[in-house]
C-alpha cells in the first residue's frame, strides 16, 4: 500500500462528497491508501487569494503543507485548483530561499515551519504512474466496464499548465486522461478545443457569471458535437462549472444540454461496482440516470 495524506479542499467534501468517497474507495482497490489530513483548510483558492496578495497565498498553502510534513506523508489530492496552490507553493518554496524565509517568519507565529520534505500529487497522476498504480492495475480493478459510453475528457488548466513549471508534457493535445478513461472500458471522444478552460477560474465565476458561463457554453457545444454521453474531469470546481453551470446556462441563455458531469473518481467508482447511491450522484445538478441506464 502506498500511503498519502488526502488533501480534500472545499468543493469535493462540501458540495460533491461522492468525489471524496469514491477517491478513498477506488484508490484502495489499486493499492493506494488515502489518510485524513487533519485540520487542513481551503488550499486557499488560487484565483481569489493569488489575486489579492500572493504572500498570503504562499503562507496559507504552506500551513497545509506543514500538516502533511508533520505526518511525514506525501499529499494526494483530487482538484486542479488545490494542485495549483499546494503543488506550486511547495515547488516555489523548495526552490526560493528568500520566499521560504519570509513564509517561515509568518508560520513561526503559529509554531510551524515549512521544511520542504514532502511531494504533492494529483490522484490521477498516481493512477497513471506505472510505479504506483498504472493502467493495467486500473483495468484489473474494473468489474463493470463502462462499455459503449462516449466520454468527453476535460483536463482543466491548473494541473498541467504552465507546462514549463509542471511535468505533464504536452498541453496542446495530451492523451493520458483518455488512456485512463479507456482503461475503465469507456470510449473517450475527441472534441474541438479540448484544452480550453471551463471558465470558472481566476475569480471570474464570482466576478462575471455570464462571461464565465459563455466560456463553458462553448465547451459544451463542442462536447455535444462530438456525441459525448458524459463529461469527466479531474477538478470539482470544473465539475461545478459544467454541472450547475448547465442549469445556469439554461436559465440565462436558454441552451439545454443535459450532459452529466462526473469526476474521474466517480466514473472509476461506477466501473469498480460502486452504486450511484454510494457516489451521491443525486446531488449532481444534471440528472445522471439516463447515462447510468446506458452504461450499467
Amino acid at each position, binding site marked *: 500500500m502506498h500511503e498519502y495524506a488526502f488533501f480534500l479542499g472545499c468543493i469535493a467534501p462540501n458540495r460533491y462528497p461522492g468525489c471524496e468517497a469514491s477517491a478513498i474507495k477506488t484508490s484502495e482497490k489499486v493499492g493506494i491508501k488515502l489518510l485524513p489530513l487533519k485540520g487542513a483548510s481551503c488550499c486557499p483558492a488560487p484565483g481569489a487569494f493569488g489575486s489579492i*496578495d500572493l504572500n498570503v497565498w504562499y503562507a496559507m498553502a504552506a500551513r497545509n503543507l506543514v500538516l502533511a510534513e508533520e505526518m511525514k506523508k506525501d499529499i494526494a489530492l483530487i482538484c486542479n485548483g488545490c494542485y495549483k496552490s499546494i503543488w506550486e507553493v511547495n515547488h516555489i518554496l523548495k526552490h526560493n530561499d528568500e520566499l521560504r524565509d519570509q513564509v517561515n517568519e509568518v508560520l513561526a*507565529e503559529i509554531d510551524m515551519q515549512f521544511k520542504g520534505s514532502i511531494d504533492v500529487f494529483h490522484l490521477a497522476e498516481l493512477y497513471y504512474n506505472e510505479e504506483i498504480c498504472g493502467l493495467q492495475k486500473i483495468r484489473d480493478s474494473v468489474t463493470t466496464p463502462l462499455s459503449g459510453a462516449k466520454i468527453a475528457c476535460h483536463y482543466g488548466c491548473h494541473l498541467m499548465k504552465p507546462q514549463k513549471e509542471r511535468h505533464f508534457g504536452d498541453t496542446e493535445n495530451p492523451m493520458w486522461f483518455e488512456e485512463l478513461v479507456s482503461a475503465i472500458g469507456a470510449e473517450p471522444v475527441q472534441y474541438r478545443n479540448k484544452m480550453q478552460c471551463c471558465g470558472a477560474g*481566476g475569480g471570474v465565476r464570482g466576478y462575471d457569471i455570464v462571461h464565465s458561463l459563455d*466560456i463553458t457554453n462553448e465547451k459544451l457545444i463542442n462536447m455535444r458535437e462530438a456525441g459525448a454521453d458524459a463529461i469527466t474531469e479531474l477538478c470539482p470546481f470544473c465539475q461545478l462549472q459544467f454541472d450547475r453551470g448547465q442549469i445556469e446556462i439554461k436559465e440565462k441563455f436558454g441552451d439545454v444540454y443535459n450532459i452529466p458531469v462526473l469526476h474521474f473518481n466517480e466514473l472509476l467508482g461506477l466501473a469498480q461496482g460502486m452504486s450511484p447511491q454510494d457516489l451521491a450522484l443525486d446531488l449532481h445538478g444534471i440528472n445522471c440516470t439516463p447515462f447510468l441506464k446506458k452504461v450499467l
Partner: protein
Amino acid sequence: MAAKTYNIPELDKKLADRRYHLSDSNPDFTKDVLKTSRTIANMCFQCGTCTGSCPSAPRSSYRIRLFMRRCVLGLENESLTDPDLWLCTTCYSCTDRCPRDIAPTDVIMAMRNLAFKRDIIPKNFLQTVQAIYKSGHGVPNNDVNRAARTKLGLDADPPTTHSYPEYIMGIQKILDHFGLKENADRILKGD
C-alpha cells in the same frame, strides 16, 4: 469601430486616447510588476499570441496583450482601474504559448495584487477571505451536504478545519499578519 464604454468619463477618455503620454508612466510600476510576477514581462514584443490564445478575449474587450504593453510602459492607472483586469480566468494558455517564455497570466496576478493595495478588488474575492477566516473553507459545508455525507458513510463534516476547529485560530493569525480580514471588512463595508 465603436469603442466599449465603461460609463466612467475619465477612463473612457483615457481609452479613447491612443497616444502615449510620458506623464502617465510610472517606471516603478513596471519594476513592481516584474518583482511580484517573477516573470520577464519587459521582454514582451507584442506578437499577440497571448490574446489569440485567451478564452476571455473573444467575448469581451479584455486584451492580455494590452496589459503586457501597459506593464512595459509603466501605465499604472490605466492597468489597475480597467475592469477588464478581472476577466482573466488564469488558464495559462497564453503562458504556455508565449514565444518569449513570459508568463502573462502572472503579470495579471501581479497587477491584481497591486490593485488590491489601492482597494480595487471585486467583492467576491473578499467574501472568500471572510469565509475562510470564519471556517477555514472558501466553500463551507451545509446541512444538505452533511446529510449526503452521512449516507455515504463519511463523517458529516470532513476531517478538515470543519471537524477540527482548533486549527482555525492559526489560519486567522496568518490572515491577521497581513491585515487581510480587516481590509476585506473595511472595503466591503465601504461599498
